[in-house]
């Protein structure tokens, strides 16, 4: 799973998909996940990184991460 090359992310969480012209804004956690995806981190690696960074139980972390990734897929930001 990788972020599309056409997706640009700014430090303040503005996301622009240059192949469709869509733009979004996300919070710092979302920006971090997008950057991890760009680096090629797997679901498991990202979950571990989130658990390390935030005080959150594993089930909630997993659900929130998958929900976010599902949304990225729906918005055509992930490579097919």
């Amino acid at each position, binding site marked *: 799973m990788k972020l599309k090359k*056409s997706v*640009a992310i700014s430090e303040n969480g503005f996301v*622009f998909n*240059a*192949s*469709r*012209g869509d*733009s979004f804004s996300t919070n710092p956690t979302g920006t971090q996940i997008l950057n991890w995806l760009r680096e090629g981190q797997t679901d498991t690696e990202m979950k571990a990184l989130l658990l390390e960074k935030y005080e959150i139980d594993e089930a909630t972390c997993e659900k929130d991460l998958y929900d976010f990734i599902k949304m990225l897929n729906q918005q055509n930001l992930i490579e097919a």
Partner: protein
Amino acid sequence: MKKIPLTIAVTGLNNSDNPGPGIPVIRSLRESRHLAVRIIGLSYENLEPGVYMDGMVDMVYAIPYPSLGHETLLSRLAYIHEQEQLDLIIPNFDAELFSFIKISDRLTRMGIRTLLPTQEQFDARLKGKLVEFGERFHIDVPKSLTVFNTDELAQALSEFSYPVVVKGKFYEAYVAQTAEQAHGYFHKLATKWGTPIILQQFIKGQEYNITALGDGKGRLMGAVAMRKTYITATGKGWAGVSIDDENLLDMAREVVTQTRWGGGLELELMKEDSSGNVYLIEINPRFPAWVYLATACGQNHPEMLVRLALGQDVDPQQDYEAGKMFVRYSWDMICDLSRFQEIATTGEVAIRPLELA
């Protein structure tokens, strides 16, 4: 680099809420690194905003409406040429192109160059002929049928699944969810624009536009894709962003290469959500009003058109900056009555008279 001095006549100065491409074309020419232009504005109406904008036109002449025929236009242009020694004309309206194409050979003999599609190219891309166009040039277009009356409409509707797009001969389109709605739109459009009316299969997806330039010999000289991000109540793009999508640009390449298109053009495309297929919806036979976005992104199509028309060797451009936006705005210019008075009474007005050496 020494700039080439040129006198160029441009139409489409109606920078209104339904803007013509004239001002963006002039703005692009004025920013050219190769050309030093004197701009002669050609206007159909005395209140076209481009007549009153600072730094755009150097001189304005009123020209006759296309309905008065191409001979009337030619004699007016001959007079303007006598005054201004025109090097080139860039027409920017669909409705006037027919006349300019008709007289282009005679303009060339007078020493006025143009870069226009041929009559055949112009006719081939008419809305009612889009299916034939697609078949002839192997380009995906949505299923379309042309109807002249309500009997034909009822028959044609049975061949579509809903929603169906109902399009006017020249402008306007509506999406009908039922046969009753389609009949309503048929009457509305037929009253306003006349028949035929075009029925087109609705494609669920995202609309994109491309401004492009063909050299008339099959080469795509440049193409920039854009997505409208703000659309007015009348369907006009009021803001947009340049995008980078190879599939869309491939379509522009196909159209220009296969048709050997000469001059500027705008493609309206739909990318289907479910399949990712790109469908050609419409070809406008001139630059769009947003053509300055292409210039700002690094491809100055009006400048390239001028250089091609002069017979210069111009390299095609492929790269441009994606993620550049345009946002239109309205602005009340305060003008002296004298300019209006001058054009209204004499049909011409000097904004920046030619300085004689």
